[in-house]
């Protein structure tokens, strides 16, 4: 039977259609977990709300913006700073958070006046910032405050500011994914096409569904710049508000996280004729293919090839060092939405680990189609798991490590399963060639940390061995390795620095003469 009902969920039989074991010879047409449905009452979900999806995931990575929540302070606080999406303007959008601090009296008497005061106060407190996004919450939606009207009034009074309104209250969908959808559509409806960009290259892309977690966007932007491609806007990591208003002028939308941002690409395709190219920024092979495809679109494939050759030569021996030590380790790939399919195949092929389970908290059935296709037979795929199911799966599968968020991750730690933060990373960035090696290093450090053995000893009663020192990671990881691999002079551990972004900031980019013979796609 491909569908799998957890023992702990026998009292919630509807859960039986939310998990599938990929059986031999079975296809997507045989079994697919249900997805993007309201969480079943009684199941303690790990999801976020639609406001969180709009603000925390997509809105707040925009860097030169005051991000104001119109609602109680709790909504704001819980969506502040817990995801490491950096920005190159000293992380302005991470450092400050803003809320109108709605109270009971506002629920009764309305909060529009107070909202207006808050907007003006925030602009006055940060005079260098002229852009704002206002996020509706459950409370302000339920009392029917007209946020757009207030924003328009302020924009009339303060002509140098621009305000974007995102009406995505917490209840606006089964999960954070509802919020991703709403903010995508709101942005294209309200803002795209209202600014004309400054162009510096004959090749222009929007880089979409990329949130600059620990610098991912800066790594990828570096590759594009080295190819002479202008990243007109990034939706939204390290992205600038006004650049994103000019998305309609790109020649190509390069889409990374389709789960959170395919909507705007689809709309840009329909409304402006800009094609959508789905890519993977993780893993040597998928990343190489992706760079080549983008370059091929513009007829500059040789530029991508030069980067791939250089980066592969530099970093492959380090990836292989980790692969030799991670081979056969069991991994549960339990992220939010898109990483289950970004990683399922390439961590198996390039790091040698076996993905024994994939899950998604807020993904749709399309994400499960991708994830199940990309993992190997026998993997357990779960939609919107609850905490008990996660525990049962860990008991059943005995993973060596799980990649997930901090809530389930901390639970895993308590049963001595190491976890890596799939949303915010450990020692990222994890995109790019070097980033992928950093990910492998984090996996290695997670699995082979000596703490797992040490923590089994209880100093209050166990006998503590004093005749030998602690086992190091290398002693643990190399125990079954062949002498050839152990002593290899080609393979080596990660040799990059602490902060790889520093080097990118100092790079001088080549100037390419215009390719007159290349017919540019007209937009």
């Amino acid at each position, binding site marked *: 039977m491909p569908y799998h009902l957890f023992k702990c969920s026998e009292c919630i039989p509807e859960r039986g259609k939310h998990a599938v074991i990929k059986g031999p010879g079975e*296809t997507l*047409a045989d079994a697919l977990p249900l997805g993007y449905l309201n969480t079943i009452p009684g199941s303690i979900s790990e999801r976020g709300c639609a406001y969180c999806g709009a603000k925390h995931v997509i809105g707040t990575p925009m860097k030169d913006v005051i991000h104001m929540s119109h609602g109680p302070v709790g909504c704001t606080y819980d969506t502040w700073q817990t995801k490491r999406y950096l920005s190159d303007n000293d992380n302005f959008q991470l450092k400050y958070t803003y809320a109108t601090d709605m109270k009971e009296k506002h629920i009764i008497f309305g909060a529009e006046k107070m909202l207006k005061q808050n907007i003006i106060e925030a602009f006055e407190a940060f005079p260098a910032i002229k852009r704002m996004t206002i996020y509706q919450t459950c409370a302000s939606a339920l009392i029917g405050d007209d946020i757009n009207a207030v924003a328009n009034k302020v924009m009339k009074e303060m002509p140098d500011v621009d305000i974007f309104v995102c009406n995505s209250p917490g209840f606006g969908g089964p999960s954070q994914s509802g919020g991703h959808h709403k903010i995508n559509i709101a942005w294209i409806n309200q803002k795209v096409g209202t600014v004309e960009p400054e162009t510096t290259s004959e090749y222009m892309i929007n880089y979409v569904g990329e949130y600059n977690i620990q610098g991912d966007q800066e790594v990828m932007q570096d590759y594009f710049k080295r190819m002479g491609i202008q990243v007109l806007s990034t939706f939204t990591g390290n992205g600038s508000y006004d650049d994103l208003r000019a998305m309609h002028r790109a*020649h190509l939308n390069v889409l990374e996280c389709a789960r959170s941002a395919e909507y705007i690409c689809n709309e840009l395709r329909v409304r402006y*004729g800009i094609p959508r190219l789905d*890519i993977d920024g993780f893993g040597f092979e998928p990343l190489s293919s992706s760079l080549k*495809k983008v370059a*091929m679109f513009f007829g500059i494939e040789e530029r991508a090839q030069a980067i791939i050759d250089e980066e592969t030569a530099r970093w492959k021996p380090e990836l292989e060092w980790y692969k030799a030590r991670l081979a056969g380790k069991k991994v549960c790939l339990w992220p939010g939405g898109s990483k289950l399919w970004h990683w399922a195949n390439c961590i198996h092929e390039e790091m040698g680990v076996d993905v024994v389970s994939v899950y998604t908290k807020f993904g749709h059935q399309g994400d499960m189609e991708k994830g199940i296709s990309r993992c190997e037979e026998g993997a357990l795929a779960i939609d919107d798991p609850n905490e008990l199911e996660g525990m049962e799966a860990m008991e059943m599968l005995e993973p060596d490590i799980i990649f997930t968020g901090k809530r389930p991750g901390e639970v895993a730690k308590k049963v001595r399963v190491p976890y890596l933060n799939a949303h915010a990373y450990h020692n990222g960035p994890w995109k790019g060639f070097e980033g992928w090696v950093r990910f492998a290093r984090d996996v290695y450090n997670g699995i082979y940390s000596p703490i797992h053995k040490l923590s089994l000893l209880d100093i209050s009663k166990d006998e503590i061995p004093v005749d030998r020192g602690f086992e190091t990671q290398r002693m643990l990881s190399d125990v079954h390795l062949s002498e050839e691999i152990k002593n290899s002079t080609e393979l080596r551990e990660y040799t990059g620095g602490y902060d790889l972004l520093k080097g990118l900031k100092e790079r001088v980019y080549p100037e390419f003469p215009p390719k007159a013979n290349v017919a540019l*796609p007209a937009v």
Partner: protein
Amino acid sequence: MKETSKERVEQLVDVIMKKCLWQFHSRTWDREKQNENIILKTTQILCDEPVVKETPEEKCYWVDAVWLANAYKEKFPWVTEIDKEDLKQIMRELKERLDFLLITGSLNAELTDPLY
């Protein structure tokens, strides 16, 4: 031992499912267009026939098709060895199989949503 044409189709499907993303667009009509255009262009590339890539949309299909054609040539020597008409037949079957797995036989309830 020589594989049957069904086995060959499954080999080709497997590469798409494991390595590509273009086949998973979110709506039926989208998937139909993707499958149609990318498989057509891949077939043309493999059969050394001219490929139209004038508009941005066609160009985008073409880059995915070039990647796929290269992957097929690299992984499966039979792709370059067999008769072009036989290859075209296999590619037709591949398209049918993809349409089944991703559209007509798909269990994804969102495919028929009229909006994005």
